[in-house]
Every structure is written in C-alpha cells, then in structure tokens.
C-alpha cells in the first residue's frame, strides 16, 4: 500500500484507494475548490441554483394542492395540480371525442414502435424502419385519426389537439424536413442555373421571414388562389409549412457538410460508374450528414418549438391547449400550472433529442477512431 502510493501519485489511483468521505473531499478539493477563483465561481453557481429552487420548490411541492375539483379548492400561494389532472386528457388528445380515443392511442403506440425500431441499434432492418416512419405511419395516422373509412366516424382535424397534434407536427416535420433539406442543399449546388436560383430563392426567403408570417400569409392568401369556396385545411397548411420552412434551415446545415467533403469522394464514386443520384445517395449525403449531426439536432429542436406557432392558424397544440383549459370557469387562473407542465414536456422532448444526438455522435466518433 505505501509502496503503491509512493510509486503512483496519479489522481485516479489515489482516489480509488481512499475511503468514501475522503474521496468526496478529494473530489471537492480538485473539481470545485481547486483555486480561489474556482471556489468563487462554484459558490455563485450554488447560490443561483439555490435561489431558483427556493422560489420554485415551495410553490410546486410544499404549498401545492394535489387534488381538487376546482380552482376554489386550492390553497393560495401553491400550485393547483388538480387542474392538470382534470385537463390531462385534453392536454393529450385536444378535443378528440372521448369514445374514439383508442385511435390516437394506436397512433402513439405505432409511433413509439417505429421510433424504437429506428433508434435502437441492435434491431435490424433500418431501411424498412425509415420506410415505415416516412410512408406507412403518416398514411395510417391520417386514415385512423380522420376516419370515414371502414365504419370509423369522421373526426375533422380541428378536433385534434394537445400532445397528439404537437407530435404530428413535430414527427412529420422532423421526418420530412431533412430529406427535403438535403434536396434543397443539392439544388443550391446544382450546375443548372434555374434549379440553383430557385433553391437559393426559396432558402433565403424562408430564412428571411419569421415562421409565424409564413403561416399567416398562407392562411390569408391561399384562399385567393384556390377555387372559390375551398378553404385550406389549417392542419395540412401547418404540416406543409413546418416541413418546408425547416427544410430551408436543414438545407443550409447539410450544405456545410457537403462543402467539407473532398473532391476525391465524388470522383471515386463516379469512377465506379455511379451517376449523380446514386453518388449523392450512397456516398456523399451519408458522409455530409454525419459531419453535421449537431447542427441537424439544433434545427430539429428549434422545429419542435416552432410547432407552437400553429396557434395563429387556430390549432390547439400542446401549448395553446392550456388556454382552452383555463377558459373553463372552474379553473380560471391556472395558467402557471398548465404552462409549467407543458414547458416540462417540451424540455423533456428536446433533452431526449439532445441525448440521442450525443449518442450517435459518440458512435460515429468511435467508428472514426477505432
């Protein structure tokens, strides 16, 4: 023991040999109070975290009322979680008729199955998983939720809302904005000037205009171009809007990856006999996209949050549904609880995306290093 301690004064070895309290003390000394500057910084961080906890915890936990039939049952000064419990199904399904909720439940189950298939590395057949997410799931979701076939009653899309609607917008946006973005990125580098100008024009238009303006313009202007009497479906509009608007951002991210690829990769693919599309699909895009995973995830998270803007076309997504909930006379004044929970759900989804992205980046890094 003494000999080992003499030979090795590497921190890891020393830490491993010390007892638990000593280990904690050592870790504190090294990582938190290594110098007076570190100590000061640590202290400031602890104070800030403490202040946040100090204001939120009493409201959210200690003074909260957990079950209530109306706002009047809740103690003042604390959260009234009875509101969230009472409105939970509205938060999840929107105004979808209660008797038909097995339909959105099936969609949720299919979505979870598809995501698991796509994301768990050990399950084979990723190509089919992609096909399922991009073709089967959208069609099944629409047919099942809308109904009108096989004896299913029609549920018009203005009844869909809450988490269901947010997921429809986010998943379709995420699945389709990257492929379309890749196409725009290729178009932006095309040798055909008309294609190039069209793509540049589209990308720069989307980047120059706020999403909310695009939605507004679409809902106000489209009826002028459609045959009289036809009104655009707000949900279809929102889905198309999100896909193309975010595709413009994806295009710029992918373009960065394309620029980082050496010319030799194109030449090697061409020399084998691959034409333009096969070269892009099998050789260039897979490499370009790997190089820009953080940028793609960044855009994806901002897409997720942009879905909340669909309230301007009259849709009740997970965020907007809170306003429907507090319109109930029993629960007037419960915004804080509603937005707190909705914020938490959005944060969880974004954080999940970040974690997933870090996992795949780690996988690529290992493949590159090994």
């Amino acid at each position, binding site marked *: 023991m003494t000999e080992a301690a003499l030979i090795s004064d590497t921190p890891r070895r020393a830490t491993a040999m010390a007892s638990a309290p000593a280990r904690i003390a050592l870790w504190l000394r090294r990582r938190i109070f290594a110098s007076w500057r570190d100590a000061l910084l640590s202290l400031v961080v602890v104070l800030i975290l403490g202040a946040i906890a100090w204001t939120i915890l009493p409201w959210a936990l200690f003074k909260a009322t957990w079950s209530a039939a109306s706002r009047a049952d809740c103690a003042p000064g604390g959260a009234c979680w009875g509101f969230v419990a009472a409105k939970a199904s509205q938060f999840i399904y929107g105004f979808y008729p209660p008797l038909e909720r097995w339909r959105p439940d099936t969609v949720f189950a299919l979505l979870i199955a598809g995501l698991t298939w796509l994301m768990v590395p050990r399950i084979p057949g990723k190509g089919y998983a992609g096909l399922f997410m991009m073709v089967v799931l959208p069609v099944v979701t629409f047919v099942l939720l809308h109904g009108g076939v096989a004896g299913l009653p029609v549920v018009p899309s203005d009844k869909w809302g809450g988490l269901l609607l947010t997921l429809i917008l986010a998943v379709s946006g995420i699945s389709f904005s990257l492929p379309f973005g890749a196409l725009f990125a290729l178009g932006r580098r095309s040798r055909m000037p008309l294609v190039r100008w069209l793509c540049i024009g589209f990308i720069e238009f989307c980047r120059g205009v706020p999403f909310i303006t695009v939605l507004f313009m679409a809902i106000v202007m489209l009826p002028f171009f459609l045959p009289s009497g036809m009104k655009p479906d707000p949900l279809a509009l929102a889905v198309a809007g999100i896909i193309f608007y975010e595709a413009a951002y994806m295009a710029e991210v992918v373009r960065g990856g394309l620029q980082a690829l*050496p010319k*030799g990769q194109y030449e*090697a693919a061409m*020399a*084998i006999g691959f034409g333009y599309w096969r070269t892009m699909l099998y050789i260039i895009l897979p490499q370009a996209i790997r190089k820009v995973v953080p940028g793609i995830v960044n855009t994806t998270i901002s897409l997720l949050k942009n879905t909340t803007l669909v309230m301007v076309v009259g849709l009740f997504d997970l965020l907007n549904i809170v306003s429907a909930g507090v319109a109930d006379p029993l629960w007037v004044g419960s915004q804080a609880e509603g937005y707190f929970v909705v914020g938490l759900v959005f944060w969880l989804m974004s954080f999940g995306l970040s974690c997933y992205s870090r996992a795949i980046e780690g996988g690529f890094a290992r493949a590159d290093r090994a």
Partner: protein
Amino acid sequence: MENPIIRLENVDKWFSQFHVLRGIDFSVKQGERIVVCGPSGSGKSTMIRCINGLEHYEGGRITVGGELVSQGDDNIEKIRQRVGMVFQSFNLFPHLSILDNLTLGPIKLRRLPRAAAEAQAMELLERVHIGHQARKFPNQLSGGQQQRVAIARALAMEPDVMLFDEPTSALDPEMVKEVLDVMIELAGTGMTMICVTHEMGFARAVADRVVFMDNGAIAEVGTPDAFFSAPRTERARQFIQQVIH
C-alpha cells in the same frame, strides 16, 4: 491489326487559357501494359482522367472498346463501369466497411445479389492479401492496405481496363512494394493497364511500352529497356536522371 481497346485521336484540352493536352494520339491494345511518366504538370493525370470522362476534352476523340467517351452522355456511366481507376489518394469511402466499399458498386450497378457480391469481394481481398480486414473501416488501415483495397474495389466491377494515377506516390516508402507487388500480380492476369508512375522497377517488370509526356504532349514512346537506357530526347534524359537520384 486487332482493334485497340482504348484509342485517343488527336486529343486537345484546355484549362481556360492553358493548353494542357496537345494533340495526344495514342492507342492501347487488349492486354497491353502501359506506363506513363513525365515531369510533374506535364498532363499525365489529365490524360488518364479524360479516358474515363472525369475530365472533359475539347478536341479530337477518345474511344473505349469502340464507344465514344463524351461527358454529359448517359453512355459515360457504362464506360466508367468498364474502366477501373485507382487514385493517388486512395479515395476509399470512409463511412463504409472495407467489404461494403467493394460490394456497393456490384450490388447497385451490376445488380449482383448481396451474397454473390460478398463472395466476390472476399475473393478479391484475398487476392490483394487483406482478406482478414474485411470488417474494418478504411481509416483503420495503413496507406498501403488502403491502396490495395482501392485496387480490389476497382476490380470488383470486373473492368476491361485499369487506370492507375500515381498509386504509390502518397505512400511511405516501406509500403510502396506491397502495392506494386499487387499491381505486378494483376499484370500477370492479362489485365489491360495504364499506369502513371515513376517506379522504374515496375515499368521494367511489366510494361510493354513506356509513354513519356512533356508539356502536354507525348514526347517519346518505347519499350522500357529502350526508353530507360537510351532515351531519344534530351527532356527524357534529364527526367530519367532525376528519377534515378
């Protein structure tokens, strides 16, 4: 006389104002091994890149197996499948395993079933002496191994002709031999080859003819012995002096 498999007739090429190929006239018969050498910047790479349409040429004509090479024509992809190319910088696909580097072309272009493509790939990897590395990724291999994979990848398309553009110039000296050995073995199978290289030993061992390029034109053509021991032009004499030392 039998038809040449590759024929360049009076080929001219410019890089904007710069006349990089000047009236190249030259043909290669089935099974011939040609070594192309010449000073840096003399247009060797440009010439062999014109043969599979990676570069565009402005004057004259190039045919491969009787088919005209012209960029922008759908035909070019068919021609490229019959002309294998090995680059100085290997250009393996880093996101694919060694095996997938070899099977991608056969599966997608020759429509081979995966099992057949993998069997063929393994056979080729054995032939270039890296059968046991099939599951690795390109950046896990040394330069010499990568270049041998690149040769196997080109052979997987079962080409009629192989083009090499300075395949050993980017390698550390100790790896040059392993790549040249593979090329010599390939020459022994009767493959038609055009190699841009300054390796005189290789040229003497396999070349039927040595083509010496200078300043965008073919300055001299001869057997390796005649060319290296008794060059006819002054430029070739200087060049050989430099390569030997």
